């Protein structure tokens, strides 16, 4: 039970990072029907930026906000320069473009910050723990879980109560009709990319806080979060969060309980396990938990 709880809480913390990453995918996909393969690079950009700012002497919380704003602006720029001209083109084409935008960002980050490993600064002691139900949990993990909860609440308010949020929902359901009704669709796109960039930065900061290190391979987190997005359903923010949390918990439980069962084959099996689950899940529900089922018309 002790191990189970330990794994469960670590999984929840990892899962909330997956959830933040997955939310970024969903926000962009809902608004502009683009599946942003460069999202992992935004995560990485956020982490590197945060380290530089804090090392430059900026107050931690302010650095957090600045990082989110800057990364969000980069996202907005990418949308304006690269993806705006591609509106109306097939999903496939925009996917390829974002893959290569990601590759370019990776090179740029490499040039600016180099390839060395760094540690993410935290306002509290990095190794400090709190005891919950007998399991010892890092402050970092608690902060990640808490931040995800706040973001989810913010999202709910945004989508239900704010003008731009309602505009985003309208754009998600039909871009042309939304435009016809006077919703500034271009501004909705820009705002969605900004939001996704900011979320990516937040995810990057918390990802860097685990004993993991901030380095040039950080973008791979996006690939690891794909199953969360697809299990949750491409269009649903709630689905992304649930998918992310489930993914994190399942991954760590698999590491603890499934890997040893498989012997030689079990080495690092937990890394591919989410994909196995995703494939099995999609066979049953091809549009994920909360995704909208496409109605086929000819």
């Amino acid at each position, binding site marked *: 039970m002790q191990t189970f709880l330990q794994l469960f809480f670590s999984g929840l913390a990892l899962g909330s990072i997956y959830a933040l990453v997955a939310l970024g995918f969903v926000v962009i996909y809902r608004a502009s029907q683009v*599946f942003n393969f460069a999202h992992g690079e935004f995560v990485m950009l956020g982490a590197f930026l945060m380290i530089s700012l804090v090392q430059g002497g900026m107050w931690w919380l302010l650095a957090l906000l600045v990082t989110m704003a800057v990364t969000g602006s980069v996202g907005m720029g990418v949308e304006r320069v*690269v993806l705006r*001209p*591609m509106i109306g*083109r097939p*999903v*496939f*084409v925009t*996917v*390829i*473009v974002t*893959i*290569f*935008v990601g*590759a*370019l960002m990776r*090179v740029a980050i*490499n*040039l600016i910050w180099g390839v060395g490993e760094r540690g993410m600064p935290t306002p509290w002691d990095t190794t400090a723990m709190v005891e919950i139900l007998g399991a010892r949990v890092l402050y970092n993990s608690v902060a990640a879980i808490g931040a995800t909860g706040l973001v989810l609440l913010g999202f709910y308010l945004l989508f239900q109560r704010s003008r731009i949020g309602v505009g985003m929902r309208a754009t998600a359901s039909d871009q042309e009709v939304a435009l016809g009704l006077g919703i500034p669709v271009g501004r909705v796109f820009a705002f969605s990319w900004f939001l996704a960039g900011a979320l990516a930065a937040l995810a990057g900061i918390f990802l860097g806080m685990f004993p993991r290190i901030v380095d040039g391979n950080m973008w791979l987190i996006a*690939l690891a979060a*794909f*199953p969360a997005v*697809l299990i949750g359903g*491409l269009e649903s923010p709630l689905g992304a969060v649930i998918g992310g949390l489930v993914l994190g918990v399942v991954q760590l439980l698999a590491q603890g309980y499934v890997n040893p069962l498989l012997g*030689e*084959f079990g*080495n*690092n*099996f937990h*890394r*591919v396990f989410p*994909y*196995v689950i*995703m*494939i099995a899940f*999609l*066979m049953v529900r*091809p*549009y994920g938990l909360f995704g909208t089922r496409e109605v*086929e*018309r*000819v």
Partner: protein
Amino acid sequence: MPTKPLSVRYEDDLRLLSSRWRQLGVVVVLAFALLFPLRASDLWLTLGSEALVLVVGAVGLMILTGFTGQISLGHSAFIGIGGYAAAILGGTYGVPFWLILPVAALLSAAVGLAVGPFALRLRGLYLAIVTLGLVFLVAHVLRSFPEVTGGLSGLAVPMLWWLDGPTVSSSPFELLGTPLSSAIQKYYIFLVLALVSVLFATNLRRSHTGRAMAAVRDRDVAAAVMGVDVARTKYVAFGISSALAGVAGAMFGWESQFLTIDATVNLVISIEYIAIIVIGGIGTVVGAVLGSVAFVVLGQLADAFLGELPLLSELSSSQRRNTFQAILVAVFLIVEPFGLYGIWLRIKFYFMAWPFRY
């Protein structure tokens, strides 16, 4: 002389090369491909062989993505299966290369057909990401049996003429009294394989199955209504595509002579193949060939010239290649969605209509 021959008989429609110009073009390209190794330096000979490997793989992906419209990020999984089939059969059991080719193709096709059921239920992005999962799964399986696949340290891939026989490098083939080097022998073997796959894809596209694929790509529901067996068409596309990828993987192994899991089965290779068919022109066989050649040649040029630029000289050579490739693909997608083939069409139509604008 009419620029386009009129099809007056049914046989005219059936001809593989419909006009004198096309026949001429094919003869010129073939002559160039045949004579190329006799004059090329070692570096360009290697690049030529690399391009031929890419042609086979790109034709495979073209059939799946270009003809049938199924996005696959899993091409490198099949490349890996073919490559490791060649490495294990050739290295451990001494199987000759011409026997490995069908085995690699069948093995890959079997895995491809296993993906089929997912392709029936999923489309677009969902399919792309499931096939991406396939890459991770294949890499994991290969990594889990280090005593067979060599694990992280990799495997050598010998290319044998017959069972436990001499390798391609030490075979007794001669041309005009001088023994042919292993690189030239490989080049010609690869050339034959590439030609066969190009011819196969060209004919496939003109066949009943090929037209069914195009119908599925353009609107699968409409295709089903018209009596196209969508499920069967997708299965066939996945099977053929992965079989060709298996062959390309075996060729890749022989070309590089050494395989490691990380360098063979990863997302980057899959993306490179997508870049190739996008640069060449999606939906055409010519596009696959043009794209492969352009990919190799431009990559080489980028390596040589981008290094001179101030900021980019700090990058490693593979990073420089990736950067160049990324910019190239982005520009093509935004400016000329049909790739090199699209540019060629524009030039052709300009001269066909000359002296009028259209």
